[in-house]
């Protein structure tokens, strides 16, 4: 446990303050009205915050490599799951077929949100 002694040179309050500042950024982002900015601030900030909590609060940076690898594998599995499932769930029509229930649903929503997520439809 003495491995952690040097880690307590960290100023946890300072890190907390940065996290709060990032939170403010992510809330302000949507107010610009520009979709790309909103997405970057929302999810970019989330990634940075998660990284900071993991590194500074969970002390993952001084943890043994086996822990990093194991957690990393779990995250990769979620990407794998997305890759394997998304073609079936996100695709709404093909050459000879169409998900009628979804088509009805998305046509209602299209106007309000503008372009929507075009890359979901191949």
């Amino acid at each position: 446990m003495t491995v952690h002694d040097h880690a307590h040179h960290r100023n946890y309050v300072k890190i907390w303050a940065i996290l709060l500042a990032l939170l403010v950024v992510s809330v302000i982002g949507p107010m610009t009205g520009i979709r790309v900015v909103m997405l970057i601030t929302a999810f970019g900030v989330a990634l940075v915050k998660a990284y900071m909590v993991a590194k500074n609060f969970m002390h993952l940076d001084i943890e043994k490599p086996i822990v990093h690898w194991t957690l990393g594998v779990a995250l990769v599995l979620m990407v794998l799951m997305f890759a394997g499932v998304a073609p079936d769930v996100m695709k709404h029509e093909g050459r000879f077929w169409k998900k009628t229930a979804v088509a009805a649903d998305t046509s209602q929503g299209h106007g309000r949100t503008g372009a929507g997520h075009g890359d979901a439809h191949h």
Partner: protein
Amino acid sequence: MAHAHAEPHGTPGHGGHHEQTFFQKYIFSTDHKMIAMQYTFTGLAMGMIGAFMAYVFRMQLAFPGSSVPGFGVVSPGEYNALVTNHGSIMIFWVAMPVLIAGFGNFLIPLMCGCDDMVFPRVNRLSYQLFFLSAVVLVASLFVQGGGFAGAWTAYPPLSAVGKYNLTPLGATLWVIAVALEFVAFLLGGINFITTAMNSRAPGMKAFDVPMVVWMIVIASILFMASVGPLIAGAVMLLFDQTLGTGFFNPGRGGDPILWQHLFWFFGHPEVYVVLLPALGIVADVMAVFARKKLFAYRTTVYTIIATGVLSFFVWAHHQFIAGIDPRMANVFTITTVLISIPIAETCFLYIATLYGGSIRLTTPMLWALAFLAEFLIGGVTGIYLGASGADIYFHDTYFVVAHFHYTFFPIAIIAVFAGLTFWFPKMFGRMMNETLGKIHFWGTIIPFNLIFIPLFILGAAGEHRRIFDYSTFPELARPELQALRIIATVSLLVMLAFQFVFLYNFVRSMIAGPRAEKNPWKSNTLEWTTESPPPHGNWVEMPVVYRGPYEYNHPDRAEDYWPQNEKP
């Protein structure tokens, strides 16, 4: 359990001198060996229920419409409930508890030279949750409407809508039982992994650990990494069943294929979760009764790790005709055929272990050899199914049923008998009867093949699964095919009859069998260096390890074995 002080070190082998009450010793024990017994006996009891279900539905298939002795006439709804619960019980309440929690709990601390698991109270909690899950599942069979009848794969909308499956209460209880079982095994897995990783005896490096420990640990890791999405899916299904949500209802913005993916993302690694402990048991039994070191131990470990990794990439081969993207089907065919390579390699490594060995055909060894032979058939027939083109025909036929019984039966039954007959002396301090063991062996293996080879033929003839009466299908109602069904059922009856030989042998040996010494099989691993059965705390003086577990017939030794803890 009478003390509550916070002293961090357990006194090694404090030998249980404080008198434990019946409840402390048998019901609320935190001792890994007792918890192992609890899991094993619960699993064996559930196995009897699952076997009874198989008896009933096979009788219905062979003699449709007849009254089944001990059950009555089987209605279509009851048939569906029987096949659903047979599958669910055998996988979740027999294979997993006996192979992983039973053998894992018993063997890991002993083989690693520990006095117990690292978290004994979490261990006890895991069994209690598991027991609760078994109670819920059995209860589901007796509620109004009967047990869940939507197949063990529980695809929505059938599983989500009571109006369709006709067993709304049973369906909900089934989901709850499965979810509880998952949580129990997550808790148990923490103990297996952490104990094996951290608490090995001094001198025991990672590759000094017996293969069965590696296998159970890797299996636990696979389970922990794969069950999450299905837990998520189970919550969603439960809500669809009871709260009117539409997670899997396309008319409500959901997608039934999502369930299939969530189920099989777990479902495929799950078969390796149960396969690996079985492979581990077989490896250790083979090494002892070939008096030979395990061939290419490290290669085997790496191969199995590769198999585990690959197992996450093959899941949609269960969904080839479900309407998935055909380009994904191509991908999954390639990965599925690829995964047969490390498995085949493992089989070759085992055969290489036997080659040149001094083979002792004891009962455990017979079971281990049978595992190899039967599992090979299962594996090879899987390749037909993994090829998406062939699967278009074979999917949902009895070919699939025969394939997975040729894999599951070796896993859940053959390997379990190998393990039980091998470790019985250590667990109960007595020897089982070899003659009865061999009679049981042949009386199980021969009928097993006579049950499932006909099912391959029936499947190739187009016999669809999950149909309770084929007499209305003219092309399947032909007398030659019905004859095959009858052969399968009669063989099952014979096989079930022979299980009484095992039961008798098991119980009688436990009570009155000849006393076992510490190491009747002359094995190297640590569990054989303590008393049979081991005391609370396992050793009076904790062992120190000096070598690997497979030093059999070492040239420098007169004896043909070299225990791990013997000083050099």
